[in-house]
């Protein structure tokens, strides 16, 4: 990993050690340690309020942790003197509610930070943006505005916007939770392709099917700690911890039919 930026995926790893985060007296992360190797896909699962989104947001310092260390590629995110803007250029983030810039066209959403941050020319930024919009299957919508797109299309634009910065790591914060069911598949397909291309991905998700198929490792969190982690087939298909079993039973069989009586 060095300063050279090129268009092939240069994957960076993540190393989190004993991370703690509190809001007032409420400790939401109670000493999390987690490693994502370059090129790996790790899915964070767990009930809401378990701290998985907070953990993800700590990785690019949208939340300031209280203790512990985070290393992202060559950057130590928790070093007070870290060049945060440089670090964030190499970390793409995809939000639950897309957070596209509504006053900019789809293309301009994908070019603005290339031009303002990476100082690329308008034509170069436009080329990169168009390539990434093609990558998510939306090259034909470059001139639209975000509010003219469906939720699934907006989320794919958000992915293209993040990819246009040539990130070495992608963070996904419940990327399909706010989508209509019929558009979820398109977004997951883009993420699957990205994983196959060797992107390092840390994904907070409730899509167990996606986690089982794509993730190298699955991490189950509850109440601010990692309860269980391992290969997807182990954690999702054959969990060992009671809390994991309970959670998966509720998620995989939301109606509880045939469970309450058992």
């Amino acid at each position, binding site marked *: 990993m060095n300063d050279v930026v090129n268009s092939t995926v240069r994957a960076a790893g993540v190393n989190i050690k004993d991370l703690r985060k509190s809001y007032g007296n409420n400790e939401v992360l109670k000493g999390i340690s987690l490693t994502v190797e370059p090129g790996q896909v790790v899915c964070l699962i767990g009930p809401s309020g378990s701290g998985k989104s907070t953990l993800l947001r700590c990785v690019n310092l949208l939340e300031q942790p209280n203790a512990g260390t985070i290393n992202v590629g060559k950057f130590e995110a928790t070093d007070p003197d870290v060049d945060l803007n440089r670090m964030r250029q190499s970390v793409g983030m995809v939000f639950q509610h897309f957070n596209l*810039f509504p006053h900019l066209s789809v293309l301009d959403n994908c070019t603005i930070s290339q031009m303002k*941050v990476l100082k690329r020319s308008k034509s170069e930024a436009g080329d990169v943006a168009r390539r990434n919009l093609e990558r998510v299957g939306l090259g034909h919508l470059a001139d639209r505005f975000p*509010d003219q797109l469906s939720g699934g299309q907006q989320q794919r634009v958000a992915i293209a916007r993040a990819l246009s910065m040539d990130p070495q790591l992608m963070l996904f914060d419940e990327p399909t939770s706010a989508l209509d069911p019929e558009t979820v598949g398109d977004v997951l397909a883009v993420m699957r392709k990205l994983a196959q291309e060797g992107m390092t991905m840390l994904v907070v998700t409730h899509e167990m099917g996606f986690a089982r198929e794509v993730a190298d490792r699955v991490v189950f969190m509850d109440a601010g700690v990692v309860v269980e982690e391992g290969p997807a087939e182990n954690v999702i298909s054959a969990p060992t911890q009671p809390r994991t079993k309970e959670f998966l039973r509720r998620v995989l069989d939301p109606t509880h039919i045939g469970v309450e009586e058992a």
Partner: protein
Amino acid sequence: MAMTARQRAKVSLYVQAGIFVVAVAAVIIAVDWKTVGTSVFNFAKIGPMFPDIFLVGLKNTLIYTALGFVVGLSGGLLLALMKLSSFPLYRWLATGYIEFFRGVPALLVFIAFGYGVPLAFGIQWDVNIIVMVSLGMVAAAYIAETLRAGLQAVPKGQMEAARSLGMPHWRAMVSIVIPQAFKIVLPPLTNEIILLTKDSSLIYVLGLTASQYELTKFGRDGISSLGAGLTPLLVAGAFYLVITIPLSLLARKFESRSARTKR
């Protein structure tokens, strides 16, 4: 026989319309039309007001308003950003400024800069400068609160998305947050311009030369020179409407447009 709710509503409307007609009739009867004809609606004698009411009055009102608005908008933006700063001193300064200039009559501010500054510093400002500073500083206090509300109305996720893409805080503000905030505050901002247009008349407290007259002063001047009573003031008032009504229409257009793009 008891009325239905619909009948009652209908009768109530007739009663309201009746009250309105009676009130208007009472005013028409009470007015001394003979005097009004010679000293309020005496349009026969106002010929000499033209074309200078355009070339001097309207022109200067527009110039004074524009000068005040430029200072008010840039000062207001600065104050709004200070008010939202994480640095307490900036917040206190902005709050103090806004409370002071919103609380003091604009007329006093004009007097302070028109007469106070020459006394205190021994310098005499040009009228344009006095208007720019006085009107601008009062406007900045009002516009700051409008812009602050607009900046806060931009969802937090916008700043987070911009920062996640590696933008420094100031860049995210300039390229992402402020443009969206301006879209939100366009209707109230247009109202600020309307208020400014009218407040520009306060410059009358300063000694103006004829070429510096704005609409109100121009009208007052006509009262003493034309012998048509208050009629020149009525004409000047109509010219304010020439400025403010199009602005109102513009504000309404912005409002319906932003309502349409909101999902």
